[in-house]
């Protein structure tokens, strides 16, 4: 079972354009990451705060609604965040063209 999870993360990181995959737990610790430690820690800390804020926005506008996905497009890359109840899956991808 744990292997399956490992496999999934590995497969995701080998997708075209993907620069890194980070799994962050509820306390902000990067559990599984394919990037350097300090980068992962930065992503973990910053993303947790942003995801909480985004969730709050969505819930405030409509209490029956919930955040499913978050995408941040920047000049150099795109960060995609999939929140869960306890964990956050972060993928950093570079645009192909």
């Amino acid at each position: 079972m744990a292997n399956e999870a490992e496999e999934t993360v590995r497969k995701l990181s080998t997708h075209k354009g993907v620069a890194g995959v980070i799994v962050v737990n509820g306390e902000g610790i990067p559990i599984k990451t394919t990037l350097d430690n300090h980068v992962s820690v930065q992503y973990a800390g910053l993303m947790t705060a942003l995801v909480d804020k985004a969730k709050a926005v969505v819930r405030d506008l409509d209490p029956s609604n919930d955040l499913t996905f978050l995408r941040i497009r920047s000049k150099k890359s795109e960060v995609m965040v999939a929140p869960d109840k306890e964990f956050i899956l972060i993928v950093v991808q570079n645009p192909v063209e």
Partner: protein
Amino acid sequence: MPSYIKSVYEYTKLRRNFGRQPLFQDVSAQMIDSINPNIAYQKDYILRNPVNREVQATLPQSQNEINTKTLVIREQGINHTEGGWPREVHLYNEEHLIRHRRRVMHEDNYIHAIKKLAPMMEHYVDQNNAINIYETYFDDMQSQVAVEKYNVRVANVFRDSYKRPISCLSWTNEKIPKLAVSYSDKTCTLNSEIYRNNDCYLWDICKQTEPFSKLQPDGPCWQLACSPIHPELLIGGLANGVVNVFDIRESANAISRSTIYNSHRGPITALLFTHSRTNTEFFTGSPDGQCLWWDFRNLSKPLDHLPMSVKIPVGQEPNLSNAEGVSSLEFDHALPTKFLCGTESGLVINVNRMGRSHSEILTSYWNTHSGPVRAVHRSPCTIRMFLTCGDWTVRVWSEEVRTAPIIVTKPYNNQVTDASWTPLRFSSYMAICEGGNFYYWDFLRKYREPVATLKVSKYQLTRLTCHSEGKSVAIGDINGSVFLVQLSENMVIPGNHDKQLMSQTYERETRREHILDARLKEIRLKIRAEEETPTTMTMPDESSNEENLIQITEQQYFKIVKDELHQLVTKTTPSNESISQF
């Protein structure tokens, strides 16, 4: 807590430095001194009555200062580089970290979470790989110029409770203009309906329930004009030929009137302000055939008068008996000494006030309509072009061409009651007709039919006046309602090359008429020449043979007819229109 200021002073002193204690004895009273009152002094004083004593009654007040406990605030930042680790895991111990991580990875929650989130993530990663969803499409396309959409709508309606037909409308010349409206039935004779209400109203365009103020002229008011510089002065021309000056600040009645002996002998059908240094002069026209010039400061007699006689029979002086009744006047500030006059017989006379003799003053005239000329208006763009409206048509004329209008449009279904050029847009004009319709024409966009029409009222429309900014148009009808119509932006502002194109149109049409005119003259001359030659030829034949005479005249007749027909065929169709002027 700050300490109190002590109001106690302690000191130590030896007992022996105190001094002897006082010992008291009981002694009987002894008179030491007696001073008697001095009567003389008493005389220097009198009893004071009344006694002035100042007393002050105030609230007992006291001042006290208090303050709360001071709060000491300090700002401090925390640098959280890494956190969230449970207490037993030391940050710098790699082993601990790895072990903790391993533990979490084996949890059920973790595996489920990864399993759930991964497919969604994959989908989006693939999506990004497939297409760039963030590009701006059509970035390099130029924005197109918006298509002109003509829109005319009725913004407001001002109704007269007495339902009197509107005889004249005028905008006041102030920043927030008001509408001056005069009501009178132009078809009524002077004597009837003396009890009819003659009030003229001044409407504030934002308030449609009741007029801003009322004017009470002495009789039915046929024309109204607002002073160009004083927004409170209004001039009214009445049905009995008298002119009234109103000042709305002062009273509703006229502040000065012209005497009936010195004024027109018929109702005043046109009233306009002229150019003068003091801006106090105006002139009026009436069906009695004369134009009178006045200064509103002194209405006791007119400054000047001019009988409008153009068709003077031989041997007579120009006077009122051979004058044409005036039905409309037009004055443009660009030509201060000239004006146009529309008459009841359908002529438009060009008047030059600086002429010395009567024929120099009334320089030229045009046969415009078969009925009274209801409106004459010069184009603000090309001064030498003017439009006239009357009977069922609106025609555009040029000052240079005498014989025919330069632009003719299809006749309307009903009689046209008023028309005017738009003040800012060079190629457009507006017309209203008796069917209750408002037409807006633009010669540069559509030549054959109006660009916009609007059925304003189910009653006949009587007057039209456009505000000098071009956006609002006031239209009056026969039932007492004034409609405020607003035009869309593109009908107010001229296009980029409009002025140029319109003057080109004017040039072209004028040239066409000139050419046609010249050609007609040629034909006429030719015909006249041919008429003369047959007379010289028949003279000798007359004496000899009658039959021969008939034959020869027949031949000549047929030759002339054939020539005529031949020329008619070779010419283009517009000539047919102008030949009707023959």
